[in-house]
């Protein structure tokens, strides 16, 4: 056990404590998988990450650093907010990418490219693994579980890019914010909900959509403050379906007292998911 550099980063916000927290151990060398998992469980956050030097293959392919991503109970091949948060912490700690403005992260799914857009970092969304409409049985169950009329779900789709999100588009952001989901009906499902914000609200803060993410937590249904993977998959559904413009900003976490901002940009075939991040704690961890 030794002291290792540590940061706790708030992701998808420029204002401390309005985003989604992430614990980052900046030197994970020599830690066993079990030690990483145990520390992650102990932090009680949705994810903790461990930065390592790239593998020889990763380095040959251009990786700047390698990261292992854990949630309580399991290691994840990829996740969105941990990718942005880890990259932010690595840059804050003095990391220099081989190509200025472009950072290549090695993780369980392979290499993920991040780009720096001013104060923002954005990752290239991984491809959808399953798309297309949901089964009508699922849609009716989701309507019941969310407490909305079936007719309030105007579109729906599989948004599976690792996490198996089932996504529904509601009529308005107000409806999204007013949801009181029923854990007994939705238990076991990961549900993404999106609704368009009024023109007046959009003019006020630039956010086109309100998003909420519900998933099976360790105590029934949980809500994630701000979700990279869901927003990536939503963009890959909504933009080609002409339900969203090629570039937009999402507001997420409002119902939890957060104010997450997710920036979506479609460039050619590639979807970029971006946001700001801020280091809220820094120091050393004994691990």
């Amino acid at each position, binding site marked *: 056990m030794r002291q290792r550099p540590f940061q706790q980063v708030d992701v998808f916000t420029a204002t*401390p*404590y309005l985003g989604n927290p992430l614990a980052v151990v900046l030197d994970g060398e020599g830690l066993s998988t079990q030690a990483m998992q*145990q520390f992650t*469980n*102990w932090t*009680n*956050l949705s994810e903790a990450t461990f930065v390592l030097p790239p593998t020889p293959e990763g380095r040959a392919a251009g990786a700047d650093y390698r990261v292992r991503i854990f949630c309580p109970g399991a290691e994840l091949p990829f996740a969105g907010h941990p990718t942005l948060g880890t990259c932010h912490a690595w840059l804050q700690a003095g990391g220099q990418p081989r190509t200025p403005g472009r950072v290549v992260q090695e993780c369980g799914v392979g290499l993920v490219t991040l780009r720096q857009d001013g104060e923002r970092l954005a990752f290239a969304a991984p491809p959808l693994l399953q798309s297309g409409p949901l089964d009508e049985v699922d849609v009716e169950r989701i309507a019941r579980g969310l407490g909305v009329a079936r007719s309030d779900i105007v579109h729906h789709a599989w948004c599976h890019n690792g996490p198996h999100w089932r996504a529904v588009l509601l009529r308005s952001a107000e409806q999204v914010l007013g949801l009181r989901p029923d854990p007994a009906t939705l238990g076991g499902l990961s549900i993404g909900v999106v609704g368009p914000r009024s023109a007046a609200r959009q003019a006020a803060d630039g956010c086109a959509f309100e998003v909420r993410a519900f998933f099976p937590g*360790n105590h029934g249904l949980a809500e994630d403050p701000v979700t990279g993977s869901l927003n990536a998959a939503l963009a890959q559904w909504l933009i080609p379906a002409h339900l969203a413009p090629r570039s937009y900003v999402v507001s997420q976490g409002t119902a939890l007292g957060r104010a997450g901002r997710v920036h979506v940009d479609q460039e050619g075939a590639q979807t970029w998911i971006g946001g700001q991040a801020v280091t809220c704690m820094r*120091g050393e*961890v004994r691990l």
Partner: protein
Amino acid sequence: MPERAFQQIDVFSQRPGDGNPLAVVLDAQGLSDADMQRFATWANLSETTYLLPPTEAGLAAGADYRVRIFSPRGELSFAGHPTLGSCHAWLQAGHQPRVAGAIVQECAGGFVRIEQSDGLLAFAAPPMQRSAPNPALLALVTGALGLRPQQVLAAQVLDNGPRWLALLLPSAELVLGLQPDHARLKDLGQDVGVVHVAPSASDTSRPGVTVRAFAAPMGNPEDPVTGSLNGSLAQWLIAEGLAPQRYLVAQGERLGRAGRVHIRQDEQGQVWVGGQSVTCIQGTALL
């Protein structure tokens, strides 16, 4: 926003990761209630504490420091593991109590005496009210734990601020094997503690008492290691001759922890709840 000295402590453990974590902001002067609550909610630990100089009344009464204790849901007047962890952080930061080995903590619930000896901090368990449980509620809780009524050797409602329904069970295996229906316990609105006392419990060279704490109504299905519950359990079990005046508790095993709570009743009848603590994360928080 300034950087404030910060520690994340593991309480009731001597090895990082084995106990119950606590976030401590070491200099909280100037923070508003809303600042404290926002950071505690974001940190997502069962408790976050803020150290302050004693009030004038506290200083006159001998207090060494003042602490405010927040869960993600609100401020608490008193809690056990935050008391030991805050005191540990205060001492680690180089402070000296006015009376060597005897620290006085001021908190919303009043003054708490803390003894320091042999690398162990122990707090004087606060006064506790106990009563026989409502038989109907006891039957429902017993059912939610998957127990038969005859497996409960004794039951008591213990209230020292936090209110626990405590069940004495006939074996450690039974305690460790429980798979409670947390949704049901949440509906019943009852926090539940279970305990087994081995015949050899007066031998404190190894744990002779096994405890688990289920707190779904507080949003925490199982607490890793629980100061308040162990204080109340000791006051009940020792008074009824169901446990010796000094014993060692193991808690947290099912969560992969190895918490150790040292219980002692002194000549005046005061129960002391003690444990080791270790600083795991040390640095600053932006607050």
